[in-house]
């Protein structure tokens, strides 16, 4: 996060848009002058090529900048390790500044397990090139060849022992130069800081009550706002006599702008009481428009779609005899952040500053500016950590809410936090999906043909477009919701990981993109890969059974990529997987594998599930994962991410579905949207990391999501003796399957 968040007045004034975004302007200049098709430097240096957008050395010491947002993944610590390593300074010598439209490069969203690839790679290369510049400057001053000099602990050292501190070598705009395409990177065998399980820099404040989150911000004179959201999508405010509300204790203002309704009070609980009172005087006209949640299979496949064949291989010489077909469904699912979305906004001298836990300060700035109908230069967004988001939750909406309210109270900082039912009821959910699979086996038990069809909405309705944000949709004179677009392959959205990584002689993959969105949706951790990997890896185990083969052996039989084979073999070995093994009574074993997006980290997970045959209740007993995410920066960080992915994905897979009637969302708290609790936490989760020194960073935030789902589903099938294909795999569905 960008701390400290308890800013004093002087800092706040300085933060009111006064900082000049010199390198952003320089970026545009650089892009104009870059020859088309010329090779670009790696990672986000390709779009923000100036070295001082990433590394600065000045009176404040050494600072590394990233346009990405720390969301609890721990990459702020990893970036500090990378910068320290390539600059040859101790870990403690680096300060990291995260996403801020006033200070950092525009790296779009912090999403898609891209932070290490984009920003980590940029910092790695920028740091190496800065080190080379420092050596060159010392060489010039000493009149010695650069190759005779070395760096050590923040200094350039000559053979005779003369040293120049980095701070003494940097002058003027020395680092304001464009990155070279290639950097002279250190040999991974010499790494001292990278590859180590360095403790996270943010954890001490979080476990001692330090100001760690946007929720903890207290600006001088700050007031508290609460929203009265419409009770349902499309509801219109017909009547609202606010006169009694304005007289309530502490109330500063009631803000009504079309269907956008909020109340501001001096104290937080005063705002909550006023919100409750306001909600009783607000009358809404609601309309039915939600689909039948009990028949999502037909709802989703019945919507108009734009269809495209995204993968096709054909070998007419190979044909199958035994065939299998299956349909898998996923409901709408909630990000379910523990802390409801929050933002602080302040209008000062025509500049709106918003402190937000958005994943994308630059695109969100664009959205807020569109909503306020001001130029983006009049809006500054500063990322401050919030509760974990796992994709596009209410963070951006809360930023817009705060800005729309703060515009009515110039000079006064306004903090808005959503209530629990607002977070659950209004966040953009992970989209419902349907997949239909069909395959055939040849004489040898190998897959001869493979057909895969996926039906899905887009998986990103993030701003940029101001119309993506609730406040802009609800205000009078609203902005239109932008047309949904499918996210392009190779990364994809609904079709992410829809193309099989296995080698099949015949394969046909179709993406049915559904523009119409009856339920508000957007990006949720792993996007379509969660359901597509669940489907593919469930089906692979079903096919293995049909072939009479062991599920691990069956996967290896169709897998060429040596790194893929390595994680599969590692997970199987560490789990103690044995061909033909039988789990204890009422237990089952499951296995699954994927390479995230078919181009990022590899992850295989073996699991053991126990089922209570009386109640149907499933419990993950243990899970063993193997992961290859390229060069390891912080092994404990990767383990933490993959452990978390396994437990969260298990919770999605066994328990979670957004519920609604034809008018309103009905899963609005933790009673109506239950998630994993400690009674169902496994006995053991092990993560084994395969390090690939010198290989590109592949990221690890999302790689476990799909494999965990399928591994658990396969173990449930193994334990129950029945295959379940409709998520979530609830106690009742398992009980019904056992009793059938």
């Amino acid at each position: 996060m960008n701390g400290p968040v308890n800013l004093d007045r002087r800092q706040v004034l300085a933060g009111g848009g006064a900082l000049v975004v010199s390198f952003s302007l320089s970026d545009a200049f650089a892009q104009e002058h870059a020859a088309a098709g010329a090779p670009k430097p790696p990672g986000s240096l390709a779009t923000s090529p100036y070295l001082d957008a990433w590394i600065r050395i000045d009176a404040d010491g050494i600072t590394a900048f990233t346009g990405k947002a720390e969301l609890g993944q721990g990459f702020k610590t990893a970036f500090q390790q990378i910068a320290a390593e390539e600059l040859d300074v101790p870990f403690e010598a680096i300060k990291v500044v995260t996403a801020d439209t006033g200070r950092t490069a525009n790296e779009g969203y912090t999403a898609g397990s891209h932070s290490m690839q984009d920003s980590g790679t940029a910092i790695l290369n920028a740091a190496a090139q800065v080190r080379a510049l420092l050596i060159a400057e010392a060489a010039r001053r000493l009149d010695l060849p650069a190759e005779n000099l070395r760096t050590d602990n923040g200094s350039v050292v000559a053979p005779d022992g003369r040293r120049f501190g980095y701070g003494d070598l940097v002058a003027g705009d020395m680092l304001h130069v464009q990155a070279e395409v290639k950097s002279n990177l250190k040999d991974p065998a010499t790494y001292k800081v990278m590859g180590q399980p360095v403790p996270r820099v943010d954890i001490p404040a979080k476990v001692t009550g330090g100001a760690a989150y946007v929720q903890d911000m207290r600006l001088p004179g700050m007031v508290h706002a609460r929203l009265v959201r419409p009770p349902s999508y499309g509801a219109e405010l017909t009547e609202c006599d606010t006169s009694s509300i304005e007289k309530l204790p502490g109330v500063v203002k009631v803000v009504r702008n079309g269907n956008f309704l909020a109340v501001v009070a001096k104290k937080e609980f005063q705002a909550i009481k006023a919100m409750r009172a306001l909600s009783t005087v607000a009358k809404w006209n609601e309309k039915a428009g939600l689909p039948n949640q009990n028949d999502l299979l037909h709802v989703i496949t019945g919507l108009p779609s734009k269809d495209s064949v995204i993968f096709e291989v054909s070998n007419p010489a190979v044909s199958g005899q035994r065939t299998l077909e299956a349909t898998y469904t996923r409901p709408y699912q909630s990000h379910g952040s523990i802390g409801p979305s929050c933002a602080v906004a302040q209008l000062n001298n025509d500049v709106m500053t918003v402190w937000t836990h958005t994943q994308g300060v630059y695109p969100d700035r664009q959205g807020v500016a569109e909503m306020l109908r001001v130029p983006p230069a009049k809006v500054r967004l500063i990322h401050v950590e919030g509760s974990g988001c796992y994709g596009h939750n209410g963070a951006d909406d809360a930023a817009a809410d705060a800005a729309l309210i703060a515009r009515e109270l110039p000079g006064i900082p306004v903090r808005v936090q959503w209530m629990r039912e607002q977070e659950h009821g209004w966040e953009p959910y992970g989209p419902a999906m349907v997949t239909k699979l069909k395959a055939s086996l040849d004489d040898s038990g190998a897959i001869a043909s493979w057909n895969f069809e996926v039906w899905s909405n887009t998986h990103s309705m993030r701003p940029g477009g101001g119309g993506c944000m609730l406040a802009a949709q609800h205000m009078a004179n609203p902005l239109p919701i932008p047309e949904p677009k499918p996210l392009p392959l190779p990364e994809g959205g609904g079709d992410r990981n829809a193309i099989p990584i296995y080698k099949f002689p015949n394969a046909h993959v179709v993406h049915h993109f559904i523009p119409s969105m009856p339920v508000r949706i957007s990006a949720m951790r792993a996007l379509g890969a969660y359901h597509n990997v669940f489907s593919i890896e469930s089906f692979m185990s079903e096919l293995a059974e049909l072939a009479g083969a062991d599920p691990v052996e069956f996967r290896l039989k169709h897998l060429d990529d040596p790194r893929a084979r390595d994680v599969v073999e590692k997970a199987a070995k560490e789990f103690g997987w044995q061909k033909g093994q039988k789990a204890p009574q009422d237990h089952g074993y499951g296995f699954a594998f994927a390479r995230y997006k078919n181009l990022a980290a590899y992850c295989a997970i073996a699991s053991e599930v126990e089922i209570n045959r009386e109640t149907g209740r499933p419990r993950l007993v243990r899970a063993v994962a193997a992961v290859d995410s390229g060069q390891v920066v912080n092994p404990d960080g990767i383990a933490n991410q993959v452990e978390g992915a396994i437990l969260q994905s298990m919770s999605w897979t066994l328990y979670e579905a957004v519920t609604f009637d034809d008018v309103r969302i009905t899963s609005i708290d933790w009673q109506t949207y239950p998630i994993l609790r400690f009674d169902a936490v496994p006995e053991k989760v092990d993560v084994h990391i395969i390090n690939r020194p010198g290989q590109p960073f592949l990221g690890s935030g999302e790689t476990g999501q799909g494999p965990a789902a399928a591994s658990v589903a396969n173990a449930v099938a193994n334990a129950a003796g029945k295959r379940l294909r409709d998520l979530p795999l609830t106690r009742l569905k398992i009980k019904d399957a056992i009793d059938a």
Partner: protein
Amino acid sequence: MTTLKVNGHDHEIDADPDTPLLYVLRDELKLNAAKFGCGLGQCGACTVIVDGKAVLSCVTPLLLLKGKEVTTLEGLGTVEKPAPIQRAFIEEQAAQCGYCIAGMMMRAQALLQRTPKPTDAQIRSELQTNLCRCGTHMRILRAVHRAAHLMDTAELTTNGSAQ
């Protein structure tokens, strides 16, 4: 005005008697650790200790706290001088986003004060009230076990400074 004892100090609180303790701690006393998660007593992010017991501060009004002693995470230790439970969570790196962690720690602290050597089943059962969305549960369990061990050791060496 209501007098409220928090972390060993008496405070004069200017808030309505129906104000939940959570807002007294956050707004009146500017304490960060107790978090708003649901306001419904469903998630445990707001957990603090009142007279030795873990309490959901979001559903506990000020008027019920007369004469009672409130302890928050801030009252246990600091970054410079962490309490055993804080040390344990740092050493186990038991956080991702960390939003639920203060509540987890306070509930665990209450358990350890009452039951210094809990079994794994006791820890799981105690933490049942508290939700974590990042999936940090395995580390949280390890950290509570470690805290029990640290407190045990601390009692031997410093005569119970473990709070």
